[in-house]
């Protein structure tokens, strides 16, 4: 049924359709509306056979989900930012134990400085933790990915993180189709665990493993993730057949034919990029897009297939590995390793801590890439005057004080009367 609803509500309804049996919730912006919605559905009886557990921390939220999953229940939780960091140990435990928990990550920056807005730093912090990580482009896809995520997680017995841009998607109200329960039931059978803690047939889960077997356990975890590379496209195809729309999969291309430049990006910014590509194509530029849905496991073969023969790639990402650059650009570089005529990769970091990524800035960025591009990491819309001022201020004296506070003071001084505007605007 088509509804005009908030992204968080759409996800809550989709998650409820997946019939979770245990939901562990701890509030943190911007995912809170999702678990609030689910809590309300449990309270009113719209979602039955489900235990909604208010826990005391994110660490507890995932730990309870681990226990529930090991006991054979379909388990769900959600978090963001610092909340994900606080549950980090349990994140690795869930995947190491092979438990098919589904978790929503309402993508948000990580402090300090504290920032509640969107970027992908939180997802990146757990990219090597052994979870499948899927990124939603729209609220429709965010809802649909959760239905696919339970099936994927349970079929392979491993946890799946659905990454959804905080605020930009979680708090956006847009048209979303919520499928009928019967269709979801047909797509997602009841959970049949690979391993289960059952008093009637006692086993132990979580053995200590020494040097004699640890490599093999890890190898098999890696092997299982790579199996997801085959299963994810199959599930997306089956989903499309049943629900009539494309959601999920490894990656999607947009106007990639005969492209001289392909942009690679994850999440909601893909929509804005598509609008920019349409405008640039209209003026003759050969620009296209690769939307990466599955970030972990990294679909190396699919990426080599679509990107291997293009001259230029812009990797646009909402995260920064401090001291290295863009982590997704780095991954792309490794995916395209040893190609005979490897594309030039131009790395751009954008949208950190919720800075809007505008069409105007993307036009400039893509144009620069078509004109030969750049080396190293480009920070989109970096305020260079502020940065240079701060660097010289810090040079002046040892006790120069905290950077964040200093920059805020500089900005406050500069924002006097509203700047003059021109052109067709008032």
């Amino acid at each position: 049924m088509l509804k005009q609803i908030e992204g968080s509500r759409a996800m809550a309804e989709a998650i409820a359709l997946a019939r979770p049996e245990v939901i562990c919730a701890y509030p943190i912006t911007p995912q809170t509306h999702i678990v609030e919605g689910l809590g309300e559905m449990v309270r009113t009886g719209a979602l039955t056979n489900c235990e909604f557990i208010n826990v005391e921390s994110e660490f507890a939220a995932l730990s309870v989900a681990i226990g529930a999953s090991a006991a054979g229940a379909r388990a769900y939780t959600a978090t963001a930012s610092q909340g994900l960091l606080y549950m980090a140990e349990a994140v690795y435990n869930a995947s190491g134990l092979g438990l098919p928990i589904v978790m929503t990550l309402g993508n948000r920056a990580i402090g300090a400085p504290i920032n509640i807005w969107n970027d992908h730093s939180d997802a990146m912090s757990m990219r090597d933790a052994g979870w499948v990580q899927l990124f939603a482009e729209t609220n429709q896809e965010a809802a649909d990915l959760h239905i696919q995520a339970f099936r994927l997680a349970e079929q392979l017995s491993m946890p799946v993180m659905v990454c959804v841009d905080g605020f930009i998607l979680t708090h956006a109200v847009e048209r979303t189709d919520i499928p009928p329960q019967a269709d979801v039931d047909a797509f997602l059978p009841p959970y049949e665990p690979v391993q289960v803690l059952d008093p009637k047939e006692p086993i132990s889960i979580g053995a200590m493993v020494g040097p004699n077997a640890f490599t093999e356990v890890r190898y098999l975890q890696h092997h299982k993730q790579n199996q997801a590379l085959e299963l994810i496209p199959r599930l997306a195809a089956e989903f499309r057949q049943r629900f009539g729309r494309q959601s999920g999969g490894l990656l999607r291309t947009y106007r990639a034919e005969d492209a001289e430049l392909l942009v690679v990006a994850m999440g909601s910014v893909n929509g804005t990029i598509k609008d920019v590509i349409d405008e640039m194509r209209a003026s003759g530029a050969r620009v296209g897009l690769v939307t990466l849905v599955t970030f972990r496991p990294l679909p190396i073969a699919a990426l080599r297939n679509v990107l291997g023969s293009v001259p230029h790639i812009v990797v646009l990402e909402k995260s920064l590995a401090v001291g290295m650059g863009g982590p997704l650009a780095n991954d792309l570089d490794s995916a395209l390793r040893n190609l005979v005529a490897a594309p030039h990769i131009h790395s751009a970091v954008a949208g950190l801590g919720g800075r809007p990524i505008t069409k105007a800035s993307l036009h400039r960025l893509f144009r620069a890439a078509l004109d030969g591009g750049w080396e190293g990491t480009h920070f989109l819309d970096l305020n260079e005057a502020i940065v240079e001022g701060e660097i010289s201020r810090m040079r002046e004296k040892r006790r120069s004080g905290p950077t964040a506070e200093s920059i805020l003071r500089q900005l406050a001084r500069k924002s006097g009367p509203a700047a003059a505007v021109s052109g067709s605007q008032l």
Partner: protein
Amino acid sequence: MFQVRIHGRGGQGVVTAAELLSVAAFRDGRHAQAFPSFGSERTGAPVVSFCRIDDKEIRLREPILEPDCVIVQDATLLKSVDVFQGLKLDGYLLVNTNKTLADLHLDKLVAKLPAGHARIVAATEIALRHVRRPVPNAALLGAFAGLTQLVSLDHVAEAIREKFPGQVGEANVIAAKSAYDALRIEQVAA
């Protein structure tokens, strides 16, 4: 695509207004995207929300930089926030006030817009009369429908009723209709 930016203060239902507008447009059979800006959601702090309306899927995720319409829920913001930033030359302006646009020193701005595109509505007064609370958003949505004819008043009313079932919703629907009528009558008179 038609883009609306709503300025108000925390507690005035700024975010809800954008949501209700998007629901009304959705019920009109159109695509709509409503989203708030974040960070200062304290009561009384300046808040901005956005709504895009189009006949096709809306993919754009940037904030609304060049609005076709600016709705000002609280005229005291005019002194502290550049609410008109990027407003298109053929755009609309709707200000909640019981003063005139001249009283608010907006004559120069109004002169740049097409005749009749800049309007005032005493939405807080209307809300106090019908809803008995100073929440101007429903009245402003009714006025918006009257001014732009972009969404139908019926669907604005349905959106309000869906969000606020019962007496509160009905009172807000009356406020919206009252503002709509006030604006239509003024337009005919003009």
